[in-house]
Every structure is written in C-alpha cells, then in structure tokens.
C-alpha cells in the first residue's frame, strides 16, 4: 500500500467506530502520551500518531512499530479532554494497516492465525475446550444437555486452556456450584469472544467470531452471561450489541457482590494483608471499582490495603490489547514492564496477596514476581480464588 491508500483505509475504518468524529478535535495537549505506560518507550505517542496521520506520514508510524506499543489500558482515552477514542479506534486502525501490510510481530501473527483456525490463541483443539471440567470434583453443566439456564458462563480461551488461568475458571465454577447457581457452559461450542482480536485491529476476524458466537448463543435459553474474563465481558457488553446480541452481561466481581450475603455465611477467616488491582477492563473501562473491594473486605481477618495507583489511575498489567502476545516485542522497547512495576507497588504497601479480577492479570503478575525476585513474598490470586479459600477455611 502507498501512503494515500493507507490513509484512505485508515479513515474508512475510523469512520465505522463510534465517536471517531472526535478525531479532528485533538488539541495536541499531550495528556495521552503523559498517561501512557509506554509513553517513554515510543517514538509515536497517541498525540504524535494523530499528528502523523494529519501530516500524511502514517507509514513512518508503522515503520517505528509504535502501533504495537499499546496495551489498550484505556488511560489515554479516559483522560483525553477531547474524548477521542484512542484505544478503540486510533490505534487499532493503525494496527489494521500493519496487518494488511502483512508484517505484525510474529508472536501476535501466530496467535491471530490460531484463532482463525482453531477458535483459540493457544493452538489447541477446539474439541478440548471443555477438558477442565474433568479436572474438578463437582459436575459442571453443559448447556447442550441442560438446554436452559439462568447464567451462561463464558470461560474464554485463557480460562479454558491456560494452565494457570484454568484454576481461576475452576474456582469460580466451584463458587457457583456452592451457591447453587443455575448456570451452564458452552463447552466445546464456545470459541474466542475476540476482544483482543478487535483491539489488535483484526476487525474482520472479530466480526466473524461475534457472528458465529451469537449464532451459538441463539441456540440456547439463558437470561444472562457471566464471565471472569474482563475482555470477554467488555466485548459482550459493548461490542456484541452491534451484531444483535442484547442479553445482560455480568462480570464475576459483580456476580460475587450480588451474592455477598450468602457468601458471608460461608466465609472462614483468612490471615492476609490484601491489596486489589483494578484491571483496566473491569475498572477504568467499565467502572467496576467498589464491588470487588466490598467482597474482599467482607472476608473475616483480611487486612485490606490500597496501592497508590488505584481505580481510574491503576497501572495496567500489560496483557491487554494483545500485549500478552507481544511480550518479546515490548521487552525490546522498555526497561521495566508495567506488571513488574505493579507487583513492586503491591509489595511496597505490605501486601501478602495481590488480588485481581481479570484472567490475564494472574499469569502476567506471576511472571513479574519471578523477574523482580518477589516470588515467595507476594502471591497473586483471582478474587474467586481468595473467596473460595475463605470458604474452604471455615
């Protein structure tokens, strides 16, 4: 593609995304770059990306690789005085150009190819997506058998296949089992929900996934979706309605909060100092701040401490927006990855346990513990894991 073609493709895409007309209102204030966890490591902060597009040198942005130095943390978008959809439009549309040129970072290209072929980024058989249910000591109902349920539980790819994230899936399913929730899973009929695919600029694949997923949803009777995957939650809540999906979507932190009275009756004591990490797509993007805090604080014995950067100012784990597939690329550009800075922050406020509410966080932070030497001092748990632990301690 020459630059003219690139700009044409870019604006064609931008114009399809809600609120992108605000693009022209960029006042070049620099708030975005100043807020960005990668701001220091990139030649093109969002402000300079917009400037480059205006100046018609979009090819220079692509050559620099700056479009991949974004973890879709949403800080810039939230703080931008002109409310420009940087995270949902400005950057993914640049990434799309990079995909069309055929040369995204290799790890990310492989993940996208795997999702196209197998419906998951792990290069695993779609027919093994429900394997985790054989690893638990209670029955996990399949919607194909049950036909009807109040909640459809979406595990998403990490929750279904990733060695560590599967444990979170099991813990949350166990909680629903203990609460007597009327729920079911799609099992092998589930495929990638695709929020990371969208944020990576693979819009065509995202549309295909959304359409296929909705067709599967329509086969069954359920009233709400519940998920512990923050990105699946975001896509189902904010993007799927465009494709005709209109059901209520509940994040597992909200579900646990709604069941708090029942949970309290089951809680035993835990002797931990706990801090909570606001995951970008639970907190900043979707405004869920108080529910998880209320749930954690309700566990007897837990001492709750806050980190310095909390709620809308929380630091990203670095896994979102495809960051989880860009690790080696990102390592080449910055000295300290956000997850490393974040676990240090958690340790500095005296926490024994860093509680999160997004499946991506746990492996990102556990990896950071190894790098920073904090392994043994600090533990990372999903909110459903610490709750289950409190119950099992009773």
């Amino acid at each position: 593609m020459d630059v003219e073609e690139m700009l044409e493709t870019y604006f064609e895409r931008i114009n399809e995304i809600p609120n992108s007309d605000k693009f022209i209102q960029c006042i070049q204030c620099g708030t975005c770059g100043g807020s960005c966890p990668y701001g220091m490591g990139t030649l093109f902060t969002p402000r300079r990306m917009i400037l480059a597009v205006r100046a018609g040198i979009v090819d220079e942005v692509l050559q620099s690789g700056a479009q991949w130095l974004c973890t879709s943390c949403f800080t810039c978008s939230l703080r931008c005085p002109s409310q420009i959809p940087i995270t949902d439009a400005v950057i993914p549309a640049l990434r799309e150009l990079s995909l069309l040129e055929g040369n995204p970072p290799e790890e990310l290209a492989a993940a996208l190819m795997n999702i196209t072929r197998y419906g998951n980024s792990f290069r695993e058989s779609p027919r093994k997506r429900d394997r985790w249910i054989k690893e638990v000591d209670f029955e996990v109902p399949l919607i194909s058998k049950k036909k009807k349920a109040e909640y459809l539980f979406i595990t998403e790819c990490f929750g279904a296949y990733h060695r560590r994230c599967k444990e979170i899936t099991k813990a949350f399913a166990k909680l629903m089992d203990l609460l007597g929730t009327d729920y079911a899973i799609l099992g092998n009929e589930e495929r990638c929900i695709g929020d990371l695919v969208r944020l990576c600029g693979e819009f065509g694949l995202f549309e295909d996934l959304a359409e296929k997923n909705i067709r599967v949803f329509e086969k069954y009777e359920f009233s709400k979706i519940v998920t512990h995957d923050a990105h699946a939650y975001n896509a189902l809540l904010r993007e799927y309605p465009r494709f005709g999906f209109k059901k209520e979507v509940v994040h597992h932190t909200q579900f646990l909060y709604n069941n708090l009275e029942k949970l309290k009756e089951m809680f035993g004591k835990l002797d931990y100092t706990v801090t909570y990490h606001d995951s970008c797509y639970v907190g900043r993007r979707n405004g869920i701040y108080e529910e998880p805090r209320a749930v954690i604080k309700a566990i007897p014995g837990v001492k709750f401490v806050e980190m310095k950067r909390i709620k809308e100012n929380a630091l990203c784990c670095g896994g979102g927006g495809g960051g989880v597939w860009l690790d080696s690329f990102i390592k080449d550009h910055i000295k300290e990855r956000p997850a490393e800075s974040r676990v240090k922050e958690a340790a500095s406020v005296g926490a024994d346990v860093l509680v999160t509410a997004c499946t991506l966080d746990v492996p990102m932070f556990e990896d950071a513990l190894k790098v920073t030497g904090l392994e043994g001092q600090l533990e990372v748990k999903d909110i459903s894991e610490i709750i289950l632990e409190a119950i099992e301690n009773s």
Partner: protein
Amino acid sequence: MKICAILRLVPDLVEEIEVEENEIIPFRYMPNERDEHAVEEAIILKEKTGAEVEVIGIADSENEADLDEGLGMAAAKGADKLYKVVLDRPTYKRCEIAKALADFLSDKNYDLILTGIQAIDSYAGNLGGILARYMDLPYIGGVVEVNVSNGNTIVKKELGGGLLAEYKLPLPAVVSVVSAERPLKFVPFTKLRQAMKKANIEEVELELPEIEGVEVLKYEVPPEPEITLIEGDVEEVADKLIEALKELSIL
C-alpha cells in the same frame, strides 16, 4: 519467468489422529508448513524479478476441501494462478505422486519449481528430489534464499552449524526450501476470505501410477515416553539427574 510452488497437505497435529493397523485417519489436514515457505519464497521472487507465480496444491478426494485455505492464502499474497490437483486415490508413496506430478508439469515450462524440504508425515519430504529425478532436472535442497540471474538460480543453502553456502544451478531446476527469506506474510481474515472467493483455481484430476517399492507393513502409535519428575532442592536434583544420566549411559 515462470515459477511454481507445490503445496501439500499434512495431518493437523492439533487434532487427534486415529491410527489403525493399515491406515492413519487424521481429523483434518493443513498446509505443510515448509511448503508455505516455498510459496512465500516464490512470492518474494515475484517481488524481486516480476516472475509469474503459480501454486499447485495437491490433495486427494478425502482431503481436498482442506486445501482451500492454503490456496486462498497464496492468492491473497499475490500468486497469479492456482491449481488444485486431486489425486485419484490417497497414497503414502511419494514416488507415485512425484511421477504423476512430473507428467503434469512436463508441458508447463516452469523455470523454477519450489517445494518445501520436509513434511511432518515424513514421507512427503522426499518429493523435491524424486520429482527432479523424474523430470531430469537439477535439484538442490536445504535452501533459505533463492535468486535468479542470467538463466541460473543462485541459492543459499544451510550446511548446519550456522554455515551457509551459495550454489549456482542452471534453470530450469527444482529447489526445496527450508524457510523463506522472511517470516510468512500475515494475511488478515477479510483479505483471506475475499481471496478465497475470487481465486481462480483450476481443478485437475490426476491418475496415480502404481509404483512398486517400499510397502507399509503396519502403522502403530509410538510408545508413550516415560516421564520421571525429579524433585528436591537444587543439589538433590543435580545429584539425581547425574545418577539418571549415568544409568542411561549418557554420562
């Protein structure tokens, strides 16, 4: 200049494979990765020299649908013409495929025929050399870069241990590629689907000759490797590991 790249299918190992005494039944097939590199290198040569690129996909009646994605990918990357060669029966014998293919290619006047150097179903890896023999053309394998100049192809070949050598072969020739000069180009979903819809694919049925030679006696699943987990602190693990390696006569 006219180049062709051969694209074969191999069992997709992400899915389970059924192994019976006289046949192997994969759940599905996918393009052979080394052949995808051969296609990529052909496209790179097109970019360098303006050569015309034709991609020849090979399948049989049981797996021909699995070929469409690979051919669509080649079209999206810029292949000029696609053939879907459907063999009249499945065969594990590369000699039979090479012979049928040699006859098919004989009047196509390709200056260069590219194949992947190997395939996970190991039989397929021999195709390049056997094809060259049947076509009476020069052959070189292990190639990581292909160039053409003055009626020759100049290739870089891996010698192992990080060593590369440059060879010159007169055209036409058959070249087996280990990997293309650059990583495989990524093709976004929409572009792939459009290419698959628009692709000009000529379907050809090929009759396989019967060639005597190696016969399969039976297929069997290799025994599961024995896994021993060594636990303990670093010193203990090191001691136990040394002992285990001594027992295996490795140390």
